[in-house]
């Protein structure tokens, strides 16, 4: 089991961290939520391909590599939709379309295909979708909606999950964002990222829009979503650690009643609890990464659920206490510690809440026993 990055991963981590600290800025970003040139840089660096096997066309890394990068991006509250593209979509395509041009251009630049799977009513139930596809001659007609697709406005093509009427499994369809019948409503998220809702109203597609096996993407989807969950957990751990350290620094400098407030034992203990929560979150993510690198599919799912549940709980605590210990200044948009809380709140909402995954974990355990 890997606890620390190896030498190559350390170098990569340092490179990402340096870039985040020195070069990254979201100042001039358009409403797309990311700058195409910056994204091209990420692709060039190989960061988008870091977690994809060589056979599929990636750099040959695994969940550890992916999460190492994600943690650094989370630490710097980078807004780019790294997890949806490099976590969920890349992992899905690596399974259902390994070696494809679609995956190649996602990993190395050129195109930005994005999985659009989330529907509000699913609430973390990974295979619950109501979007349907109806056979229509050689092609299909899609109806339904996708909610809060993170990174959606930045995608060059959308990979819509839908159930073909009369069939059991889920199928992935590739759609151009400009496709007639598709309405895209973009919005800014509470943590200042870019997302969109999609409404599909009789979207006509040719048969070649189908990506991967017809009505057979279910397992690949679960694994891809769980991979994205781990990467977003790593982002959250990065954000938590940053918030904790920022609070630590504040306690060392802020004075009230004649001394640094870090001298007050109740605040010390709160800081200690923030640290403990951060470390517990890191531990469960490491454990889930380890499972994700293994062969036991049930174990992978269980631990992804465990990680999401535990990290979300830790995140809201750490983010909330970071504001509390800062006092008034923590409430200001300008100072910034509150941005960690917002990111950690958004993290809880993304891909099923921590609570939903606790219930998922319990259900998986009960299924295991019976």
């Amino acid at each position, binding site marked *: 089991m890997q606890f620390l990055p190896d030498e190559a991963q350390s170098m990569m981590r340092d490179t990402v961290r340096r870039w985040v600290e020195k070069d990254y800025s979201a100042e001039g970003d358009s409403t797309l939520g990311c700058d195409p040139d910056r994204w091209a840089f990420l692709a060039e660096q190989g960061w988008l391909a870091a977690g994809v096997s060589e056979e599929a066309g990636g750099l040959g890394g695994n969940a550890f590599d992916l999460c190492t990068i994600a943690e650094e991006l989370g630490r710097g509250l980078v807004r780019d939709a790294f997890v949806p593209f490099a976590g969920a979509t890349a992992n899905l395509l690596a399974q259902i379309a390994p070696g494809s041009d679609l995956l190649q251009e996602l990993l190395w630049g050129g195109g930005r295909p994005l999985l659009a799977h*989330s529907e*509000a*009513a*699913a*609430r973390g*139930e990974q295979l*619950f979708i109501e979007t349907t596809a109806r056979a229509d001659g050689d092609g299909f007609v899609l109806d339904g909606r996708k*909610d*809060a697709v993170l990174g959606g406005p930045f995608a060059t093509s959308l990979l819509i999950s839908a159930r073909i009427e009369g069939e059991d499994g889920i199928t992935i369809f590739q759609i151009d964002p400009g496709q007639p019948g598709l309405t895209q*409503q973009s*919005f*800014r*998220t*509470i943590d*200042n990222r870019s*997302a*969109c*809702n999609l409404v599909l109203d009789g979207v006509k597609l040719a048969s070649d829009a189908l990506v991967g096996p017809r009505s057979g993407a279910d397992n690949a989807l679960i694994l891809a979503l769980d991979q994205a969950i781990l990467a977003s957990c790593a982002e959250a751990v990065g954000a938590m650690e940053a918030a904790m350290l920022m609070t630590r620094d504040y306690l060392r400098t802020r*004075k*009230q*009643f*004649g001394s640094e407030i870090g001298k*007050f034992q*109740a*605040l010390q203990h709160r800081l200690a609890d923030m640290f403990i929560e951060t470390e517990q979150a890191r531990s469960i993510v490491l454990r889930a990464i380890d499972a994700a690198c293994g062969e036991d599919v049930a174990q992978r799912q269980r631990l992804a659920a465990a990680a999401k549940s535990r990290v979300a709980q830790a995140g*809201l605590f750490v983010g*909330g206490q970071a*504001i*509390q210990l800062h*006092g*008034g200044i*923590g*409430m*200001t*948009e*300008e100072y910034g510690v*509150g*941005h960690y*809380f*917002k990111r950690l*709140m*958004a993290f*809880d*909402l*993304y891909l099923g*809440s921590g*609570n939903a995954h606790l*219930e998922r974990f319990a259900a998986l355990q009960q299924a295991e026993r019976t």
Partner: protein
Amino acid sequence: MSFFTAEDETFRLEVRRFIQTALPLEMRERNHRAYHPTRDDVVLWTKALQQKGWSVPSWPIEYGGPGWTVRQRHIFEEECFLGGAPELSPQGNSLVGPVIYTFGNQEQKTRFLPGIISADQLWAQGFSEPNSGSDLASLRTRADRDGDHYVVNGQKTWTSEGHFSDWLFLLVRTRQDGKPQAGISFLLVDMKTPGITVRPIISIDEGHSLNEVFLEDVRVPVENLVGEENQGWTYAKVLLGEERSFSAMVPRCKMEFERLRRNASFSRTSRGRLIDDPHFAKRLSALEIELLAHETTTWRVLAEEESGHAGAMPTSSIIKIKGTELLQQIELLSVEALGLDAMPVYPEEEYREALPATMPGPVHAVGVTSEMFYRRAATIYGGTNEIQRNLIAGTLLKG
């Protein structure tokens, strides 16, 4: 719920009916979204209440208040919240007004109280400073006597509604030596006086209700000193003690709990409505039970106030702690209950007045997340919950 008498319930109905008739529908909807109130809404609503003699609910009759009992005030506040009325500006109503009628001179009463009652003059508070948060007595803004004026220099912060207020009440240092508390005075300042600059503080809900106020050689006539020079700390302390049941936030907790319950009946899951999910129902119930307990504790404090002999314990600290922590729990669950519909920002300036034609989520999602973000301050302002716990322990260990 027999805390309230039959007369109380009659009074409650009267208040409810008045709100239903006097409060414009669009204002109610605006306020149910729980964004920061605008000046226009506050003024309009205060004036509507003034017609009934209700615009300064906590004041005694002799100064223009309705002379209500504490439970009537509680009922009034609750009905206003649940009915969607904008909150009355607390600075005039609960803070500077009582200081003026208790410690001010006749001229000050005549000059300032009518403007508060009519909302013709809105007030802002200048207590906190960047380096004086919980440790308020360490404030450094100074007022130096120059003939029949004070010359004020310094900086105040967390000034709610400072951007649309007419007057500012200040704690300033008028003596530099001695104990920090001893040299503080209480001044009333016209915000149009030269030398005052107001700079907005955008809070993490992306809303604007807070401000910094910079004071540079601001000349304040000596007749605007309340009470005696260097006695301002005494007045402020009395005033801060006044808040008591106000800080319990029972009406706001109830409003937010009802919003959560309503919203959870709109949220869908793969098995039906979220409200019908047993796991969710259990979490909701835990909050509801806490709210019942908290409301009852607040009633106990009200009954104590009524009986005139407050106990030895700082019960106001308990209800401040519980009210604010419960409010945050309710609001966190509210956001979670919205699920992906909580992801979009619904910015105050676009959603406050009227809803846009297209929205990234359902109507009931509007304002939920920003309210939750804003109320992270509830455990900080009005004396942080850490300070409140110090107070409770201090009383216990002394007693």
